[in-house]
């Protein structure tokens, strides 16, 4: 996913002079040609994430669209105040490409884990958070953000979703596959081809959802499956309207879920007809201070929060 996004951005740099790429000492190899050909617009800014984010704020204010690439905890934890103030509060749009969310660097210990990025960004009103399921989608989402120069946070996962598409009907797309960059992407809906009278809904948030034990079983037992690629006010509103049609809802959230749950509950509470049961599966909030496989953390250390 990383390589596909960086390759796509490299191809866009000659065509779009508004793009300035700042690397936090990451992605140098993939961007080497672009750095050579456009040294003033593709910069290895160094290991100073807070300053780099502030710099992005200034570039954005100066009329450019900065694309920022580094590792999730160094950007979102260390640079949290800069994201909050210099980008969001001061309304300076920028695309943050964040590599290694949750437990992509699972074997490297808590310094490199960051499962609270999305919740923390939601807490400071980040308007557009993306966790694409495939590299194709990641490239489309990158294109969309650049084309529209929006405030955007794209969580690049080391995993892609392994989904048996042939067993499902793709019953809804709210966008034209050929003009993806012209649409903001909310979600895709799939229904099992056989036995589709089930009254429960499965919602998955990003590709790491597949590592929860509940994933396989829920795929076969759910009347509808929604893939949430984007967390925004609009997408959450749409999701809640779908949730209200079901008796039971299972949310597989492969990160710290409080920010998301708060937003969902706020909207659900305003409705008259609500599901009988809503459960969220998510990782435990631990410091995983040993070397773990990523899959193991999701399989063996998950919590279930009963929302309703």
């Amino acid at each position, binding site marked *: 996913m990383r390589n596909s996004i960086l390759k796509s951005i490299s191809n866009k740099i000659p065509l779009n002079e508004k793009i300035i790429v700042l690397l936090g000492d990451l992605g140098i190899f993939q961007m080497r040609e672009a750095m050579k050909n456009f040294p003033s617009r593709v910069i290895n800014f160094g290991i*100073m994430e807070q*300053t780099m*984010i*502030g710099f992005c704020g200034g570039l954005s204010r100066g009329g*450019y669209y900065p694309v920022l690439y580094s590792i999730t905890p160094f950007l979102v934890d260390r640079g949290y105040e800069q994201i909050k103030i210099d980008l969001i509060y001061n309304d300076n749009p920028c695309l943050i490409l964040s590599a290694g969310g949750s437990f992509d660097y699972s074997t490297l210990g808590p310094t490199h884990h960051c499962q609270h990025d999305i919740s923390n960004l939601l807490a400071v009103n980040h308007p557009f958070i993306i966790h694409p399921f495939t590299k194709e989608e990641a490239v489309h989402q990158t294109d969309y953000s650049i084309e529209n120069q929006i405030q955007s946070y794209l969580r690049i996962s080391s995993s892609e979703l392994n989904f048996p598409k042939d067993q499902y009907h793709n019953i809804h797309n709210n966008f034209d596959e050929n003009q993806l960059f012209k649409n903001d992407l909310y979600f895709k809906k799939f229904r099992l081809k056989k036995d589709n009278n089930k009254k429960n809904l499965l919602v998955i948030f990003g590709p790491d959802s597949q590592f929860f034990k509940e994933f396989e079983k829920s795929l076969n037992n759910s009347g509808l499956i929604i893939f949430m690629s984007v967390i925004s006010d609009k997408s959450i509103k749409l999701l809640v309207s779908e949730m209200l049609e079901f008796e039971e809802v299972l949310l597989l959230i492969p990160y710290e879920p409080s920010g998301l749950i708060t937003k969902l509950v706020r909207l659900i509470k305003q409705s008259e007809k609500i599901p009988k049961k809503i459960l969220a599966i998510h990782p435990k909030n631990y410091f995983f201070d040993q070397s773990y496989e990523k899959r193991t953390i999701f399989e063996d250390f998950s919590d279930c929060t009963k929302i309703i």
Partner: protein
Amino acid sequence: MDYLISTSKEEIKNLLDQNTCQILRKANEVNAGHIGGSISMSQFLLPLMYFLEIENHFEYKLVLSKGHASLGLYSILYLLKINKQPFLNYCTKNKNSFHGHTCSKSFKKLLASSGSLGHGLPLAMGYAYAQKLKNNNKPVICILGDGELQEGTLWESLLHIFNMQLNIKVIVDFNNSIETNTLKIDDAIKSFIEVIDLDGTSFSDIKKGINMIMGKGPKMIIFRTIKLANVKSYESKPQWHAGIPNKEELNDMLNNISIKLED
């Protein structure tokens, strides 16, 4: 080329006097404001803005990284008739109120709303870089406090600003805000980059500073100022960083204002 400020020293003294009085009165009226740093900063910012705005209608951008000194900036904007609204609505309960830290809608040349120390310089640097790419050489003025110099982002930014040769004028309101501090931050900076060290109570030094600002390339200027300057017996006392004078203290302060502006 030498730029001359044509306003007389007496006129600037008179403006500083009015500015000091109205900052103190406003803080007492709304029970808010960082008066110490607002008044220390005004020592050089008032004549500077008089030169840039009134005498020359100069094009530049401003970042008030020490965003807590908003009352000082708003007072100057009021006094120089640039925008009266921020001062009039400072910490009021009106719909159009301005809170206690600097808001970008107060002045069209402000690049950002500010208040968290250490944020201004990276942002100013990004904007200056954008201007450089567009071959636009208008300066970005970024005002820091001396306490803020301890922030890591200052040091990180300096690594780039001089390397990129950006047209940024970093001005430090050096009012010794952290008086118990054992760090010799000014010496540390001077060992790192060239710094112009000026007296904020000297009219000729302020003029020198203005000429530095009008020059090309990155510059760092320290203005030695005094917290709650010109208010005798209240100067340089840490409690007036964010302390608000009550009615009695206000009257005493107003009776003890004596503007010092050396030649």
